[in-house]
């Protein structure tokens, strides 16, 4: 019996969230291959856009896949390579970052970046009573980062919340720590930090603790890393909430796709994962102690 091959192309584990992504993808691979004996899952990871395009070519030409699940490194540049896969007659599932031409995909599973910025901003507005001084730590200069930050800025427009400083922290703990140290030296009063990402937030927490200014501010990260969810659950005053942007979405996408391939199960065209605000009330629901992320 001919095996059905599903290719999965994701960015390499070059930062915490992507690490979680990798882990969930591999878990899903094991699970699905057990569940469907005639399904073969091939995961490839890429460090940059060019390599991801290469990977797609290889999946089609040598691995001869039947379906592709892809989390594009970046939207615009990956659109054409994915189109080529589609044109080769493969089923295409796009995860997280939408292509510039949505007509290519058969299935779209995604988080919502602008919404993430919005939810974060709304939470901060509420918590700060619409005024105060904040600093923003950004990710890596990419579209995703821009979407989040733009939505955030739009949402706080018109309030008395003032962004004192903004720097890239590359979705990285060390950079979060360094940038925050310097922000702390530079600004005598900071009411809140929007770190946008849990890895950055962890670095920020250490810097704030070191400066002994825990009482002065709170920190809002994002993604849903287990350490952060735990803090929220434990009512850590420094981390009153978190905004979900779960890397587990890749597993979901793989499962839906596999089910469709093997069982010919009907599917919706879009599954959008809400950027849920995690608070002490609902935190337990999003806590996965076994995940590495």
């Amino acid at each position: 019996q001919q095996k059905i091959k599903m290719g999965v192309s994701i960015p390499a584990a070059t930062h915490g969230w992507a690490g979680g992504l990798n882990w969930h993808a591999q878990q899903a691979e094991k699970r699905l291959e057990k569940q469907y004996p005639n399904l073969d899952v091939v995961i490839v990871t890429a460090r940059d856009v060019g390599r991801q395009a290469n990977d797609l070519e290889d999946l089609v030409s040598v691995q001869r896949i039947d379906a592709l699940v892809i989390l594009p490194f970046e939207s615009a540049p990956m659109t054409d390579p994915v189109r080529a896969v589609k044109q080769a007659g493969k089923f295409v599932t796009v995860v997280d970052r939408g292509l510039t031409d949505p007509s290519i995909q058969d299935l779209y599973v995604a988080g919502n970046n602008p919404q993430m910025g919005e939810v974060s901003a709304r939470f901060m507005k509420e918590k700060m009573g619409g005024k105060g001084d904040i600093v923003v730590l950004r990710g890596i200069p990419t579209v995703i980062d821009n979407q989040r930050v733009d939505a955030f800025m739009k949402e706080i427009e018109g309030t008395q919340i003032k962004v004192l400083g903004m720097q890239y922290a590359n979705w990285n703990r060390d950079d979060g720590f360094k940038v925050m140290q310097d922000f702390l030296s530079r600004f005598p009063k900071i009411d809140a930090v929007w770190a946008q990402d849990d890895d950055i937030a962890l670095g920020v927490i250490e810097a704030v603790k070191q400066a002994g200014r825990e009482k002065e501010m709170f920190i809002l990260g994002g993604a849903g890393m287990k350490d952060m969810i735990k803090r929220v659950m434990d009512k850590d005053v420094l981390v009153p909430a978190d905004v979900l942007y779960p890397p587990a979405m890749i597993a979901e996408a793989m499962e839906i796709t596999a089910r469709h391939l093997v069982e010919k199960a009907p599917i919706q065209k879009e599954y959008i994962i809400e950027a849920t605000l995690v608070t002490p009330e609902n935190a337990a629901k999003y806590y996965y102690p076994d995940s590495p992320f």
Partner: protein
Amino acid sequence: MTPSVMPEAARKPSSGFDLKLYGPFLALAALIVLGTIVNPVFLSPGNIGNVLTRTAFIGIIAVGATFVITAGGIDLSVGSLAAFASGVMIVVMNALVGSMGAGLPVILIGVLVALGLGLAAGLVNGLLVTKGRMEAFIVTLGTMGIFRSLVTYIADGGTLSLNSEIRTIYRPVYYGGVFGISYPILAFAVVALIGALIMYRTRFGRYCAAIGSSEDVARYSAINVDRVKLLAFVLQGICVAIAVVIYVPRLGSASATTGLLWELEAIAAVIIGGTMLKGGYGRIWGTVVGAVMLTLIDNILNLTGAISVYLNGTIQGVIIIVAVLLQRGTVARR
């Protein structure tokens, strides 16, 4: 390793086979065998075509890097320059569509802009190294940061995308070809050929090697050392521009992450090919083979699903070391 000042004749067993000379080619052959074992599809024309087409960018850049390294320099800015030139090229072409309409002229101007930028960047690097008497490493580390941040700036932190009409016209430059050979492969072949001609057959090539061996001897041989080094950097810049010209139609975009770490890959290709990092001895064909090998390793890893993706780096590292170790066989036995 530095060239032994007084090499024992044993170094060059005039009888028989010079492993050091043919090493890169042997290692390539070994890799091809490995690929075929892993997955027979490996040898299909489609796959070979893909691999070679992909190699083109790094390969073309690495040809330029061979000159810089042979002349005793190093250029860390190539990846950032590629991103920057791609970005500017896209911005310029997009801006011109309005007035000129989407057509060949716009693309030609874009290509000229890329070439001009490559040339200018090479000049800047080269002048800082020669007139400023600075280590090439530091100069190009600096310009690397500069180019990368400039592209981030013009892209506003996001992605610059090529106007779709132009894209359609420009696209065949990457995806098209003649007689089943893609244009990038052709461009790579032409660049390598010209590079080899320059390296092996012209004065400039000789001078690069002479300067890399000893700047003093070069100077006392009436060689304009500064000019040759400058030219090597300019050549590198132009090679980057050529790579950009075939890269842009591929993905039609540029961002802060475009060309990340290409410098490392290009230098690795050069060194794997047998050129010495300290300069004085450059091998264009070795560089070509080195570049192909690097792409092949990625390709082979994609051909097998057997290994945890986390370990890709391990396999890559081991293959690179073993491949180079094999080709250094004779030297070790010396």
